[in-house]
């Protein structure tokens, strides 16, 4: 009989398979470094939105513009604000919020929508993560038109502080990598997480100072803002866009969040990266 006796015997260990921890780190590092791949994926996706439409992704820009303009004027009336200061505040806030919240919601579907790829190829999943971030940065670039228009109308000066928008975007992207990886993994295993995230973000939009400014809240509820991490991520680009520097507290919170988040994600990713293909 051929049977089991013919199974090749493996006496010599050729090499040790890499530990799970190494695999996860390797995935993250070489995924991020593979910019040609995620650059192309994000770019193609953006290009696709232009196909067969006249203004493509600018539709989101247009609807955001209408939103900001109408509500900006209305709320300026309601809350007795000066439109020339309220409009720039709302515009830059919404721009930042759209970036931050879309990164989070799209993070939920990053792996589930890549199911076909994950099940047929071995590649660094982080490429998908980076593609999401890159695509959203391109959308932000589109939305920037509203910002420029409003700034010209309101006469907000460009200062040296405005340059802080770039480290801000870098910090947001760095955090987006772990948030998307973690949420993508969670949502692949527990499909409810996506729904939970969407509902939480819906409420968060009103709780986070985007429509109103933190000093309107008064000292009693100050903690609601001080410890709201979403607020700090928004501040990271909103403040520079308004010509201010974000407060040191914002950088402290974001820094903490980066450290804790990455630590958590690397731990979880090391453990469960190998299970992802099974969950899809």
């Amino acid at each position, binding site marked *: 009989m*051929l049977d089991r006796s013919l199974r*090749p015997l493996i006496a010599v260990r050729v090499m040790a398979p890499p530990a799970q921890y190494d695999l996860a780190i390797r995935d993250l590092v070489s995924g991020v470094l593979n910019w040609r791949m995620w650059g192309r994926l994000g770019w*193609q996706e953006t290009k*696709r939105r232009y*196909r067969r439409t006249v203004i493509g992704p600018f539709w989101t820009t247009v609807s955001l513009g209408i939103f900001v303009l109408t509500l900006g004027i209305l709320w300026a009336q309601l809350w007795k604000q000066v439109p020339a200061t309220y409009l720039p505040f709302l515009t830059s806030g919404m721009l930042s919020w759209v970036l931050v919240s879309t990164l989070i919601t799209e993070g939920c579907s990053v792996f589930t929508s890549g199911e076909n*790829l994950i099940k047929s*190829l071995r590649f660094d999943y982080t490429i998908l993560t980076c593609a999401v971030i890159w695509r959203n940065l391109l959308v932000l670039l589109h939305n920037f038109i509203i910002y420029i228009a409003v700034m010209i109308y309101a006469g907000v000066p460009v200062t040296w502080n405005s340059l802080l928008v770039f480290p801000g975007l870098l910090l947001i992207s760095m955090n987006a990598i772990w948030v998307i990886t973690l949420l993508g993994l969670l949502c692949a295993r527990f499909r409810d997480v996506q729904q939970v995230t969407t509902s939480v973000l819906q409420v968060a939009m009103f709780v986070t100072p985007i429509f109103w400014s933190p000093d309107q809240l008064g000292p009693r509820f100050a903690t609601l803002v001080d410890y709201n991490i979403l607020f700090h991520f928004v501040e990271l680009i909103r403040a520079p866009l308004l010509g201010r520097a974000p407060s040191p507290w914002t950088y402290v919170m974001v820094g903490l969040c980066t450290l804790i988040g990455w630590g958590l994600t690397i731990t979880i990713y090391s453990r469960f990266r190998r299970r992802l*293909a099974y*969950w899809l």
Partner: protein
Amino acid sequence: MASLILENVTVDFPIYGTQKSFRVALRSATGGLIRREGLRHERVTVRALDGVSLMLKHDDRLGIIGHNGAGKSTLLRLCAGVYEPTQGRVFIEGKVSPLFNISPGLDPDDTGYENILTCGLYLGMTHEEIARKTPDIEQFSELGEYLSLPVRTYSTGMLMRLGFAIATAIDPEILVLDEGLGAGDARFAERAKRRVDDLVGRSSIMIFASHSEDLILSMCNRAILLQTGTIVASGEVHEVMELYRKLNQSG
């Protein structure tokens, strides 16, 4: 030198969202062994591969034979690194090129040329390699001007030719092939066969799963027979095939 070693590998698929009635239905299904885990047996898993060991070296062309649900595709995906084993270990040395479906990452709204680049990147080629291979893909797919049009406008046959041309343009070290790659009209089938032969010739190790005896006999120099996730026979293609036929008759 490429090599691939599986050491006592087991793969359990977790089944989520199963109701009790569904679990009962599962029991009568074919395929792997269904188990329950956890304290109250609330976790259902399907054992797709059970203690599989395998050692492949340069010039090995392995054919995997077995019934539907014997674990062929799972074994292929394991060799490709898509699935990590639940137990046991996998050692892969060399670049693995899996060809399961013809065009991973193909987007219908992109043009043929754009898809050549995207799919090529997914298959592990560099920009330079893809640029070098593009004339060959153009020539083999015979799509001409169509390559500048969105892929969504292609006929099924055209889409298949494009996918096939891209997938077979790679320079694999370890080639993992599922059957079903190929087909098309008669003239294309002939050209496709030659192209696959060429592709296999370029590879160091080839792993191929199929139901077709002829294909296995013509393409492989070793074979294993899988049955409900275990290797029941391994060795010469003819011998293993003989056993498979016997099994079919008695079953």
